């Protein structure tokens, strides 16, 4: 039974994939410091849209008291996830609140003022989850509001249900953590490997998959050792050592590296019988099923050159990032950029009162030294670095040139929609061209053009309906007028007839008179 050997990516497969970059990983010192308990902030902001899909629908009212683990917003559609109170307290506001978004705009959320009692909302875990039907397991996961915690934030229960429908044979566990700076998954694997392995077994049970590949980059030997140890009695779990190369943690690339299967561009991983989950998600599944604990806290890497004591913190979801930085000793110097997520794919945050969400793996405060390398954008010298680095096989330089010239449709023709925005191209560009920014702009512009088109169609329909209505009204009017006219004619005729009759009578009378 004990088949705990570290596996490697087959040589030829490794050789065939030459994309990516080996960036300076900045994982120290956070990776070597134990996870610390998080702060209890004065206010928690829980966005209603922390996941892919429809925003959750609030279930509480302003002023209502909530307890830890209580469902405060329910999923509003098939693809959606609920939100739970991270601690006990009072709902202060439901509405427009600061959001972790590059625009700095407000969005819908629920604000809770904690009371410090951390009172628990009672819930009972099932005695033996493996005795449950797979559907029941995914129902528990759904009720706990678990979403992909690597950053994609796709509702996990939906993925499990999808897996049952499309004959999943393998679970790919993403422990690669390829983003520089971040070490939350590394710490999680080192400290809570048993929980992750239990999560893996639960997901195998829920999806019907028969084996799991745990992919870990080779810059995390301790995590590999911990996972091997935890999985040693489970032959169906294989721990695979991955080369350290960004973006190894990208779904499709990871699947290919671990299983040799290539997911179709227009389809999903499930089309090749694979489902991918992040180690953090699997741990959340374990907590949800074994301890009846919804997803209300997560491990967040607080790092960056401007942070005094960078480390991993197990923080309540909804904690404002300013509180997290304060918790880690504050800033040594004013940060030049605040980032949510890693430096490669994370979003810049214009405001420090924005909260962390379920998909927040880290918050970074970059110092001047770290961000001053960004010079002004120079002209593209067509060096092709981006072509070699792109994990998808796109031509970023050509796409950006088309976008710059305003030919968005032409950039789609050469693969814009396949871009995963991993940032590798911008990272390697010697001219400092913000390639990903170009792609984001083009994707957004195209989406809003599509929306406009839909809107125009709707408008057209409205206008047509109005025309039809006016025509109908005109017809009715004409009909009414005609009816009135006919009425008048009739009346006239009647009157004429009457007059004639009268006249006739009078005539007769005169005749009679004259006759007499």
């Amino acid at each position, binding site marked *: 039974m004990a088949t705990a050997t570290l596996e490697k990516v087959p040589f030829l497969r490794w050789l065939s994939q030459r994309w990516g970059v080996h960036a300076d990983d900045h994982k120290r010192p956070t990776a070597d410091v134990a996870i610390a308990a998080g702060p209890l902030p004065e206010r928690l902001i829980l966005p209603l849209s922390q996941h892919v899909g429809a925003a959750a629908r609030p279930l509480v009212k302003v002023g209502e008291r909530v307890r830890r683990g209580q469902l405060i917003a329910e999923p509003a559609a098939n693809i959606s996830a609920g939100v739970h109170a991270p601690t006990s307290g009072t709902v202060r506001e439901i509405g427009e609140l600061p959001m972790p978004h590059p625009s700095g*705009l407000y969005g819908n959320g629920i604000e809770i003022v904690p009371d410090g009692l951390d009172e628990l909302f009672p819930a009972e875990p099932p005695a033996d989850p493996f005795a449950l039907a797979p559907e029941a397991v995914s129902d528990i996961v759904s009720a706990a509001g678990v979403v992909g915690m690597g950053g994609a934030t796709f509702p996990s229960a939906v993925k499990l249900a999808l897996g049952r429908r499309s004959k999943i044979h393998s679970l790919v566990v993403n422990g690669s953590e390829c983003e520089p700076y971040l070490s939350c998954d590394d710490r999680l694997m080192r400290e809570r490997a048993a929980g992750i392995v239990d999560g893996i077994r639960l997901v195998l049970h829920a999806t019907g998959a028969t084996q799991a590949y745990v992919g870990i980059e080779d810059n995390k030997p301790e995590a590999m050792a911990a996972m091997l140890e935890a999985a040693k009695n489970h032959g169906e779990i294989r721990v695979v050592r991955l080369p350290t190369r960004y973006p190894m943690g990208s779904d499709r690339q990871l699947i290919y590296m671990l299983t040799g299967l290539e997911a179709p561009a227009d389809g999903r991983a499930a089309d090749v019988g694979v489902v991918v989950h992040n180690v953090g998600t699997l741990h959340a599944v374990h907590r949800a099923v074994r301890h009846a604990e919804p997803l209300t806290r997560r491990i967040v890497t607080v790092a960056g050159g401007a942070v005094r004591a960078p480390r991993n913190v197990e923080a309540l979801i909804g904690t404002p990032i300013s509180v997290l930085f304060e918790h880690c000793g504050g800033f040594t110097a004013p940060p030049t950029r605040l980032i949510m997520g890693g430096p490669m794919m994370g979003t810049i945050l214009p405001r420090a009162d924005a909260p962390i969400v379920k998909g927040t793996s880290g918050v970074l405060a970059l110092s001047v030294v770290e961000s001053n390398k960004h010079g002004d954008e120079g002209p593209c010298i067509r060096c092709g670095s981006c072509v070699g680095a792109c994990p998808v096989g796109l031509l970023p330089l050509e796409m950006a040139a088309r976008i710059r010239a305003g030919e968005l449709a032409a950039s789609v023709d050469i693969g814009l929609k396949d871009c995963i925005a991993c940032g590798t191209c911008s990272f390697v560009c010697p001219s400092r061209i913000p390639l990903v920014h170009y792609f984001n702009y083009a994707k957004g512009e195209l989406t809003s*053009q599509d929306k406009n088109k839909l809107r125009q169609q709707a408008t057209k329909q409205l*206008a047509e309906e109005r025309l039809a209505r006016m025509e109908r009204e005109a017809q009715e009017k004409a009909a009414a007028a005609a009816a009135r006219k006919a009425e008048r004619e009739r009346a006239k005729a009647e009157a004429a007839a009457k007059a004639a009759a009268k006249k006739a009578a009078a005539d007769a009378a005169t005749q009679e008179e004259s006759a007499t």
Partner: protein
Amino acid sequence: MLIAVASVALIGGFCGVALGVAARRFHVEPDSMVAEIEALMPGSQCGQCGYPGCSGAAAAIASGEAPVTCCPPGGKALALVLAEKLGVTVDTSGMVDEGPKIAGVTEELCIGCTKCYKTCPTDAVIGAVKQVHAVIRDACTGCAKCEHACPTGAITLSPVAPTIQTWVWPKPQSQTTSRPAQPAGAAA
């Protein structure tokens, strides 16, 4: 002389016959460009282009009389589609999509005259005689017809503020590679 005339006439005649046969063999129905263009237009008959309704504009665009950029509600997206259809190149960089606008009624000023209600091409204004009118946000296209029709200036168009759902990344500003950005006179 006679031979020359005859031989040229012969060549001409031969070519003429050959072409005549070919014309019949390769006959193509003329395409209904106007109808196709009209199908692409917004269809709100707002008249901002200066033509009577969308069909008038479609005819003008098809004949090349009006530029493909003449339709403000259609914006850049429509201009690009039309340019593709007509096989012309279009410079949309000069076109500023001002972002969607929406009409709003100032209730204190509204006298309930129903003029706006009658003029709205998409039935987006509701209300009855002597009652304050209101605008249905989803149906309003921002064509500004009601703004012109209102006798008391109660209707104003205001831009729709972006939300997290509608916000998009702005185009990157590059200093060195932007097109003709030279100061005046430098290009010459």
